[in-house]
């Protein structure tokens, strides 16, 4: 019998090799993919989030945990797809027009993927039209906008206005984040939420997808 605690620990400790190995063993024993996700990996990511908030974990640990979870998800996703299971949600993410910084955006994308979301990473310096495209053609229901520069923050407002003009604003939740972004700014431009850090961003997305969010 595979020890499920091992999968939890592998994600928590960012051990991708072990996460993949335990996932393989568990699948060979006939354990359901959803059971591994809900029973081991999501609780582990919750604990990672808690340690991050407690300042015991920082970005490197988040990245490693997300990578371990992604390693395991790579094995589970085809099985879920074969069962006709939908991803927990579809997210279009990008750094807004005029801004080339992508470390924070990549981190959030990685953590969302690890959390079972299908992520359309549009890259950096993304024009509003490309977000609209991702909503219309890929079915993204969550849009995550990132900016690192004070001068590019207004591009977030422009993007949200463009979603309105295109008539797709009501179909999606829009979340914003990045070093200079504040809650007040998020409210002012009509975003649905503000992710103070990558951990909060994932919690917002999970909430939007109707999943439980750790308190």
């Amino acid at each position, binding site marked *: 019998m595979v020890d499920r605690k091992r999968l939890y620990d592998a994600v928590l400790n960012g051990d991708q090799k072990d996460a993949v190995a335990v996932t393989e063993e568990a699948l060979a024993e006939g354990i359901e993919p959803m059971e591994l996700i809900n029973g081991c990996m999501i609780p582990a990511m919750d604990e990672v989030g808690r340690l991050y908030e407690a300042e015991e974990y920082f*970005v*490197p640990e988040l990245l490693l945990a997300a990578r371990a979870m992604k390693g395991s998800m790579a094995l589970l996703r085809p099985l879920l797809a074969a069962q006709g299971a939908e991803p927990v949600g579809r997210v279009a993410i990008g750094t807004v027009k005029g801004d080339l910084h992508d470390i924070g955006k990549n981190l959030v994308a990685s953590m969302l993927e690890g959390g079972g979301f299908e992520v359309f990473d549009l890259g950096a310096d993304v024009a509003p039209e490309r977000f609209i495209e991702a909503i219309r053609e890929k079915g993204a229901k969550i849009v995550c906008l990132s900016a690192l520069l*004070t001068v590019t923050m207004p591009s977030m407002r422009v993007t949200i206005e463009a979603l309105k003009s295109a008539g797709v604003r009501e179909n999606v939740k829009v979340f914003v984040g990045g070093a200079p972004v504040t809650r*007040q*700014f998020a409210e002012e431009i009509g975003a649905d939420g503000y992710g103070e850090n990558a951990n909060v961003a994932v919690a917002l997305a999970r909430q939007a997808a109707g999943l439980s969010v750790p308190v």
Partner: protein
Amino acid sequence: MKIREMVAHGPLLSDGAWGTQLQARGLGLGECPDAWNLSHPEDVCAVARSYIEAGSRVLLTNTFRASPIALAGYGLAGQMARMNTAGVAHSRDAASATGAYVFASVGPSGKLMMAGEVTESELLQSFRLQCEALASARPDALLLETMSDLEEARIALAAAKTTGLPVIVSFAFDTGRKRDRTMTGITPEQAAAAMEEAGADAVGANCGNGIEAFADVCARMRAVTTLPLWMKANAGMPCIVSGEAVYDTTPEDFAAHLPQLLAAGAAFAGGCCGTSPAFIRALGKGWPHAIPADRL
């Protein structure tokens, strides 16, 4: 000249932000500020002069993003060498009026090695090429600034040291409740100790989240190193007023923190994002009278 000799007679006033000054002169959204070294030399020289006129004794260069990796994002990697040498020349041109020092600015790659976005050898090569280009224009020192990742800082320092110029390594502490960690979780003590061990000539902090936190960061570095300390705070978090970033901190608020910063052991002080020549003037007013007359 060694960094220690430069500050032997007392701390030196450095400069303030460049990007916002260039924006005021028309630099567009998403445009590469460093490209203006070639396309708008008069504007870059005017910003450099404005800091010399405000009293800066150390002037940086408009070369923060002019590394092959960062410029590749703008499709400008081909202009890398010229952008760097022009940046040093513009600052030297302004600094020569008073004999102020020119420290050439090198920013981080903007890629996370630990996320596999860039390899160690790619980083080394990128920093090496930029540092060599800068060194060929003969600045007084190289400043590796706004670093977050200790490994990247070590690689950048190794590359910078091959030029034979003095090297300062400065980190951005902007994470955690006390804003005393870099993005990757590094503390001031870890950063200072690691850089001294790796052969830096000075260490410090820049950007961050307001000058309030800097005296503490400075004192914590001082506790673990005898190297000269470089401190360049930003003007805090901006608020957005009708689409524009506005910083609440006034030059006088900013300068009020100078005595604590110097008491904590800062050998250099100046401003980062959100500061302007007015901030440097305000710092100059409160400057201790340890600057020899021949340097004024």
